[in-house]
């Protein structure tokens, strides 16, 4: 019981500490791939510390919501990330939220972020908020269809049960899962604001979605929001790892050695995912805003098709 509590606490700290490292790793690899030396991998930690030490400059028209939002966004994203099995399943409080609740928690964070974008009353904030809500209105249904597909297969929406099912023999090689994986990757790219949907390194109006909403933030508020967006990337990578590559996850009750092995395997999964993301982002150009609906519509179609095809395969026929 005590060990379980420690593991849950460890999970919360792991996601918090690994997320800037993942982002730093992706940035370094992207730079190397285009022939630059790039910033050091620990630079995101230094950026966060620098931001924490700076003053907050608030716009005159900002309200209490602007000041409270970063904490709420950070809290919702951290809680959601801490509920995803990263190195161990069967966490102490994993029954508090299943996949649908995790998606909805991210929706809460996005709600507050969009409102914060509208708070100061500039046109940049408006651009960011309206585009973000448009992307969300397509990405959330696609994500839920992926959840349906996986849940119909695994018989549960709890991530621990899904991971256990995926590790077991009953899965086989299914085209529905392949489609669900592609749809989930598309949704993850859209939700985290990576190329081809949004460019995390730019400040040009035409290419901003996330950056536009947080344009007016500074100092410690900006640090919390940046940390929350790092956590969101880690969360999506963890979900993909937990559902589609669940090997190496320690089951609760197996002892300390299993947890440490799980941690090592998790770090390897993060490195692999980061490498794939860096290669993908370097190889593809950003698409126009009007094409987002085609891109995310493809994810939605794949999700629906994956659910349909499940009914044909041997489990439900």
């Amino acid at each position, binding site marked *: 019981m005590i060990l379980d509590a420690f593991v849950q606490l460890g999970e919360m700290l792991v996601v918090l500490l690994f997320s800037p490292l993942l982002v730093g790793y992706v940035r370094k690899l992207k730079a190397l791939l285009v022939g630059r030396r790039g910033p050091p991998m620990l630079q995101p930690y230094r950026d966060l510390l620098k931001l924490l030490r700076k003053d907050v400059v608030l716009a005159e028209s900002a309200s209490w919501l602007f000041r409270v939002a970063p904490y709420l966004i950070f809290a919702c994203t951290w809680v959601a990330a801490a509920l995803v099995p990263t190195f161990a399943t069967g966490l102490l409080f994993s029954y508090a939220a299943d996949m649908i609740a995790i998606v909805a928690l991210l929706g809460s964070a996005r709600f507050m972020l969009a409102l914060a974008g509208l708070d100061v009353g500039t046109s940049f904030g408006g651009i960011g908020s309206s585009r973000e809500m448009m992307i969300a209105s397509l990405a959330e249904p696609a994500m839920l269809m992926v959840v349906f597909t996986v849940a119909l297969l695994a018989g549960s929406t709890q991530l621990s049960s899904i991971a256990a099912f995926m590790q077991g023999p009953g899965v*086989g*090689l*299914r*085209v*529905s899962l*392949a*489609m669900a994986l592609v749809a989930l990757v598309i949704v993850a790219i859209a939700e985290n604001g990576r190329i081809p949907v949004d460019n995390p390194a730019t400040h040009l109006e035409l290419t901003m979605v996330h950056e536009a909403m947080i344009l007016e933030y500074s100092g410690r508020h900006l640090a919390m929001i940046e940390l929350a967006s790092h956590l969101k990337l880690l969360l999506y990578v963890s979900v993909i790892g937990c559902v589609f590559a669940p090997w190496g996850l320690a089951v609760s009750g197996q002892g300390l050695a299993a947890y440490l092995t799980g941690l090592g395997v998790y770090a390897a999964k993060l490195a692999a995912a980061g490498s794939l993301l860096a290669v993908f982002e370097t190889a593809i150009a950003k698409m126009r805003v009007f094409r987002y*609906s*085609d891109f995310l*519509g*493809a994810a939605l*179609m794949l999700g*629906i*098709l994956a659910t*349909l*095809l499940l*009914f*044909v*395969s*041997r489990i439900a*026929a």
Partner: protein
Amino acid sequence: MSPLALDVAHLFAGGLVLVSLMLLYQDRMTGLINIFALHALVVSASVAWQAYIQHAPHLYITAAIALVIKAIVIPLALHRIVVRLGIHRTIEPVVGIGLTMLAGIGLIALSIMVMLPITSQAGTLAREDLSFSLSVILLGLLMMISRRNAVSQVIGFLSIENGLILAATGARGMPLVVEISVAFSILIALIVIGIFLFRIRERFETVDIHLLHEHRGEQP
């Protein structure tokens, strides 16, 4: 039949349906022809796998014919026709892409709903392949009616034939003679269509069907 074998067969058949949907999504000529080559590739891989698990060596020949003729020869020929006729490179759909894709998904659901209950006596492999092949056929028909371009209609027609191959192999083997005759007739049809396309292009300077309507003589 081992579950892995069934799963791989299911993977190929489902992949064929997915590639048919991708065919509907294309709005450029070169993309369309390349995806059609992929379509033929998936169908030949599927037939080759069936040959392996059903221990029916004559199906390997079917797979080879599909690979050579439909994945290599016909796409190359179509690329050349497109270049020589100078055909407009974008394909306009009649209704928007989104609605066409939704209709496609509806057709897949419809074919599954129709095929699965009536084949309840057959084996799992046959049931899956029949449902998916009906989907591919319906999607090919949808492609033919929802595009304004003659080349895309030809490709839709050819993808229907791929669906028929899937159905025939799934239903436990197809005599080689039938396959050769079917493939041969398709080849003849393609040559004839190609000749017609040249003539239409020469006469009317376009192969856009919408514009050709004016020459039918019945229009007001």
